[in-house]
């Protein structure tokens, strides 16, 4: 990859983001009572207010880890739509292990809980991989269906057998206080979990880009026929990446629990699985790009909350603004911005459409 290509893509990205922000400003201008206040609250407050900033960075942690999970799936040409269920079930496993290990040293609890989260999420993901390998069931659909079922089952477990009898929340009991990840910037929910997330990301990047496993995985994703010719077991690369994808979602869930919530609240994860897909797509599956992508996503989320709470903007307006930003964020070219010849040539060579993502 030469520098020019990267530079040009960067240029397009800057333009698309500006276009997105510009159009959201216009919307704010038309729909909010005080444009200036709303603008500050939406775009500036998340960065200057310690509480919002903390929450924003805290939200990046699960986005990065789950986004990495999506990248593992996409890079091997597996489409994981089951992030929600994997994340949710992983969280449950982590919470149960942590509660069972009450009294043990925190480090031990973390180790076992995160392992349990990874195992639970991973098994759910691997089920779709298994169905694909054994029965040629499309993993896109099976992961979605399995996830829908798993969410319901976890709901049942949380509100039934594991419901905290002393809480009015639909939630499990809290994890031992010692096991809660140390907080940074209280009262925001930022914790050392963000460092865990970055560590996981670096490991993931290393595995994906430097190891034989990662090489084979990406080769399977790029051209199945060639991978098979090269003696790579595609079956394994339907199964293992889906397992890893699920495992990373599980860890992402555990990070949310150990970093912010301290217990499993019913439906706490709703939407994170989907957001992770968006983050991975914005980052084009490049591990390091996941950090800015997650930051951007969390920033939008934070800005939305800020403007709703601070200026009473209705959720609908915020929704429309987010929709507009999504329309632009992955745009490869804008009508008023002629694509650099290079990009155009590159695109023409690339395969159009298919599933859009990987």
């Amino acid at each position: 990859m030469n520098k020019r290509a990267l530079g040009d893509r960067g240029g397009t990205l800057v333009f698309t983001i500006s276009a997105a922000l510009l159009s959201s400003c216009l919307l704010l201008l038309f729909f909010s009572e005080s444009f200036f206040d709303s603008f500050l609250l939406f775009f500036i407050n998340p960065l200057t207010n310690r509480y919002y900033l903390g929450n924003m960075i805290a939200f990046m942690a699960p986005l990065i880890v789950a986004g990495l999970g999506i990248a593992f799936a996409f890079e091997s040409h597996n489409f994981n739509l089951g992030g929600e269920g994997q994340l949710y079930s992983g969280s449950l496993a982590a919470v149960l292990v942590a509660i069972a290990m009450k009294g043990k040293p925190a480090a031990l609890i973390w180790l076992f809980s995160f392992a349990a989260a990874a195992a639970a999420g991973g098994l759910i993901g691997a089920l779709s991989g298994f169905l694909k390998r054994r029965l040629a069931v499309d993993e896109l659909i099976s992961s979605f269906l399995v996830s829908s079922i798993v969410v319901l089952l976890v709901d049942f477990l949380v509100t039934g057998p594991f419901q905290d009898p002393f809480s009015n929340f639909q939630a499990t009991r809290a994890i031992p206080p010692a096991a809660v990840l140390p907080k940074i910037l209280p009262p925001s929910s930022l914790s050392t979990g963000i460092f865990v997330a970055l560590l996981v990301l670096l490991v993931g990047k290393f595995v994906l880009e430097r190891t034989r496993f990662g090489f084979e995985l990406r080769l399977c994703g790029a051209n199945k026929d060639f991978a098979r010719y090269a003696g790579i077991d595609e079956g394994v690369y339907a199964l293992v990446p889906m397992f890893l994808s699920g495992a990373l979602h599980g860890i992402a869930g555990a990070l949310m629990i150990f970093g912010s919530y301290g217990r499993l609240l019913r439906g706490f994860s709703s939407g994170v699985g989907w957001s992770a897909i968006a983050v991975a797509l914005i980052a084009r599956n490049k591990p390091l790009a996941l950090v800015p992508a997650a930051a951007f996503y969390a920033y939008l989320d934070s800005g939305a909350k800020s403007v709703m709470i601070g200026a009473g903007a209705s959720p609908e307006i915020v929704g429309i603004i987010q929709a507009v930003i999504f329309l632009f964020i992955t745009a490869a070219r804008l009508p008023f911005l002629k694509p650099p010849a290079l990009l155009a040539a590159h695109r023409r060579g690339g395969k159009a459409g298919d599933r859009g993502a990987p």
Partner: protein
Amino acid sequence: KIGVFIPGQREGSPIYDSLAAGAERFASENPGSSVRVFEAGFNQAEWQEKLTSFVGSNRFDVILTSNPSLPDLIEAIAPFFPSQKFICLDGYKTGISALHTVLYNQTEQGYIAGYLAGLISSSALPGANPQKKAGMIIGQHYPVMDTLIAPGFEQGLKAVDPSFGLDIRVLGNWYDATKASDLAKSMIASGVDVILPICGSASQGVVKATKDLNRYLVFFDSDEYARAPGTILGCVALKQKELAYAKLAEFAQKATPWGRADVVGVKEGFIELLDRHPSYAQNLPQSIRGRMSDLIAGIASGALSFPAPRL
């Protein structure tokens, strides 16, 4: 300066709407006071973060909210905002000096609805059948539902006739009206003739199905008769607006009993069977109305009481 924190959405949830309305009425009648209403949405996991931002972003004299789970949240964040006061309706927690809670006796509310449902089902009304079956369609299971409302409703039914059966079906969300309508139809096909829907905006589907099939509904929390007069034969309301107003007035007089938890019901005037609407008064035979007013009188006088389990 009053902040109203709504853990949900104002529109479509009468209970939250009346909470805000009560505060707004108080503000309009008391010059110098102002209200800011914030809707936090239905995801319970986000409430803590949003409540913290809400408290942190403004200077409120008092924050008024309503939900059984809010006291736990308030307990968690109160240390960060030592001077902030909270009043939580529909919740129960003692011993926090910044918080006063008032719990509705929803067993009582359920009992009244159940008793009415039982009477309707065993009546000679055109839509009633001889089967002793009534139903509830709920959005989800949740603690207040499972420990207060549903048992209360069932007790009410059994008080009419111990052979009554209660059919509870779950929608899985609060907005799939089409599925709610299918559930209602399926329920009616199995012999249910009175339904109590507690499923948010999806209740529209239940109303539609019951109306089409000429069966009956009893409603909860607020005056819903207008949605289907003749089909909705009873509403057991919470007087949330009045309670909100009363509690703010008490706050203005600095008379709030901080740290205390109260329980209110028919006796205190904050749970009421809305019996003056024509849909109730004209569609129900005198016999039923009579037995209902006896029941209400009994509860109001204290002759009949339902200890609400502490939540």
